[in-house]
């Protein structure tokens, strides 16, 4: 049985155009990545760039999210949430690292490109960068995270420390922040999407805001690409902003945009996880179909191992349903509220946390069944494990799942002081 038939998702919500796109991506995945995993292991960076180029330019994923009026693919609407999940899922089946890049890129563009908040000035300025025929790294998010005990402490976004300050000087924002850890793509990004605290003199004022900063401006210092557990398709580096100036118009003009970024991020990372799990299923299915235990029967016929396989299938099924359900909810603001409002924002966090956790659980169980093959590079499972774990830690930001739990407790129990 095909994986799409085995693991349900609401097919009736996926339009023909999206299914055609998903098919194109699957063909790309099978031909360019999965069939070439040996080549990828020999020269990963170059292989990723080659395969990304086909995906980004030939299939058109790089411009997909930008408005048609600015040369994009027109997927710039909350109404396309399901299409976006479907696309990211298929990319991530091949390589969660590449899926992660698209997921994070999209989340970084969302505040300016997504209907009903399309910012024409910002789109006109930045769409040409990403809607051409040249492969780009894409947008990089700088989100609130851990504070430093030695700092006096700036304003918070729901307990997380905002480490970038923006001050209005005439018609320009002056951006400052040191030793910042981007969520993604810090090393090569063309455009930072930064959650900033607005300062007026020595005082902070107003709500956290999003300001876009082109990646090549004077005053931006990039550290070395750092080594990390997974997601090696994406090169990241610490960033400092030293009096970096951008036009006043580069700020997104609504307070709720920051929560919207988190909603998109959790949805899209959920899609990365379920794509990864689809391939994990394919890997373990191949394994248990031939592997013999105790010198006789197949491993999948042993009740203990079958019970573990059942856990894996359950994790995949539930994760996929949850992620598509979130996408569906995000397409229906009249019924559920905007994705920038507390209720959907909290739901997205909950589902993001649940799906990453389930994905990791399923991969861990798969590794147990495969033994040494689970951690040997040649079986292609361990990369999924490293990639998904990295996403889980990144989504936490700081303090494990505690910040998300505090957001949930606030939403459901009206907590005031946590």
């Amino acid at each position, binding site marked *: 049985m095909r994986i799409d038939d085995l693991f349900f998702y609401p097919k009736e919500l996926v339009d023909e155009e999206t299914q055609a796109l998903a098919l194109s991506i699957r063909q790309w995945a099978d031909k360019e990545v999965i069939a070439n995993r040996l080549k990828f292991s020999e020269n990963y960076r170059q292989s990723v760039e080659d395969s990304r180029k086909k995906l980004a330019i030939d299939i058109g994923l790089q411009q997909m999210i930008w408005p048609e009026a600015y040369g994009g693919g027109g997927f710039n609407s909350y109404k396309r949430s399901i299409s976006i999940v479907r696309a990211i899922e298929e990319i991530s089946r091949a390589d969660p690292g590449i899926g992660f890049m698209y997921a994070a890129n999209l989340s970084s563009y969302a505040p300016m490109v997504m209907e009903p908040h399309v910012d024409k000035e910002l789109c006109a300025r930045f769409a040409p960068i990403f809607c051409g025929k040249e492969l780009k790294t894409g947008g990089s998010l700088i989100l609130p995270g851990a504070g430093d*005990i030695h700092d006096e402490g700036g304003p918070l976004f729901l307990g997380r420390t905002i480490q970038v300050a923006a001050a209005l000087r005439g018609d320009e924002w002056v951006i400052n922040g040191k030793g910042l850890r981007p969520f993604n793509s810090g090393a090569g990004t063309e455009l930072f999407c930064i959650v900033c605290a607005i300062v007026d003199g020595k005082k902070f004022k107003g709500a956290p805001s999003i300001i876009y900063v082109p990646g090549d401006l004077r005053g931006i210092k990039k550290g070395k690409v750092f080594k990390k557990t997974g997601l090696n398709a994406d090169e990241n580096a610490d960033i400092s902003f030293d009096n970096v100036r951008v036009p006043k118009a580069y700020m997104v003009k609504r307070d709720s945009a920051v929560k919207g970024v988190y909603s998109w991020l959790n949805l899209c990372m959920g899609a990365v996880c379920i794509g990864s799990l689809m391939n994990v299923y394919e890997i373990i299915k191949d394994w248990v179909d031939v592997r013999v235990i105790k010198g006789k029967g197949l491993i999948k016929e042993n009740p203990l191992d079958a019970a573990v396989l059942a856990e894996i299938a359950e994790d995949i099924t539930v994760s996929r349903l949850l992620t598509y359900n979130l996408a569906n909810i995000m397409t229906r603001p009249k019924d559920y509220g905007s994705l920038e409002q507390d209720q959907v924002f909290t739901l997205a966090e909950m589902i993001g946390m649940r799906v990453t956790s389930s994905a990791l659980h399923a991969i861990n169980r798969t590794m147990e069944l495969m033994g040494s093959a689970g951690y040997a590079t040649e079986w292609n499972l361990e990369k999924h494990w490293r990639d998904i774990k990295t996403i889980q830690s990144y989504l936490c930001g700081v303090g494990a799942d505690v910040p998300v739990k505090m957001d949930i407790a606030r939403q459901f129990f009206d907590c005031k002081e946590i």
Partner: protein
Amino acid sequence: MTIDDFSRPQEYISPLDKHLGNIIRQWAEKDVIPYRRRFDEDWKEHKIIEPAFKKLMADLGLQRCIFPEEVGGWGLGHSNYTATVSYRMFEEIGRADTAMAVAFGVTFWPLTAITVEPHVNMRLCKEFAPMFNTDKACFAALVMTEPQGGSDIENIDLLKGRTIETTAILDGNEWVINGHKLWPTNTAGVADLLGVVCTTKSGSDDPNDFALIFVPSTTKGVTQGGPYEKAGMAADKNSDVWFEDVRVPSWYRAAGPGDDAGCFEEVISWGQMGSSAFLTGAMMNLYEILYKFCSEKTYNKKPLKENDAIAALLGRIAGDLDICRVIGYQAARMIDRPDIYGGRGSRQVVSKIRNFKEFIADRAVENFGKAMDVLGFYGADRAWDIEKHWRDIKIIQLWMGGKQLCQMEAARYFFDCKTL
């Protein structure tokens, strides 16, 4: 509070513990921890890793410790504290790098069958001790897993060795060995001496046919492949090993018919005890790193450790280490004192120590994963050292039959299951 304050039964501790522990900690601080972030890229060559091994094993002389004094060793195999002091050594090495700990520990693994009371085989000790009395690092390997699987071979209580396909046939005064092995620690050209698990009669489940035979790695007919690329454990090389009409003297068999199978059951206890030590060593380092991060970084304008919800996670992590260390040292004690707990290879001891290891591995896997999340954007960053441990300790959970075999052994023992 320091890492040395985590609990362990003080009455079990060897008089050598403090001295050896301090020596290895100094070595780890100077020769391993400053370099370990580069180990992943060194997995094939071991250019950075080898000098640290040389210092530990040859210069400090630890590779000789298990051999009797008469052949130049330290006589650790004669002690009532062999396992307990080994636990401390493994733990200290594991704190710095669990892959180095396994490469070190596995060197003694097959040797327990000829150096530890009551199995001392002085003829073989005399034969092999000179290999280890050198100024270069010398390793041994226990060559066990085969292409059809490793857990079945380790599942000796049920399968009694009948799935072993590597054969040893007596031809005059020599064993002739043929077979194909996978995954042994210290292969890919590392080990000088191989302890080969094989059968003298293919398909037999008679314990008399189970054999553990020593083979110097330079023997004609032994071929080792290149190292496997893995998710972690760069300091531990693993490869295919082929034996094609390999001939060794008949007296290279460890203990003889029936006794080899008994030694192998003991080997399982040793291996699970060692695995537990690697894990608690890594967890001690986790505590050190978390203490620093959670004291310096804030959430909601307080140090992470001062937030009640985060503190609950930290408390669980530290509490688990405290408990796991007690359990790990208990495993070592059970190996050291068969007069109190029963034979090292008995169902009782094998099952319980497997159970201990499974528990400790589960706690370690969960706690390292949670710790990476506490660090958030920095959890996957190699510069914070936790993620490397996270990759390494998962491998420890998976090896030696993994969780499922541990669970079956426990069920068999505690519920008297007959067919698992």
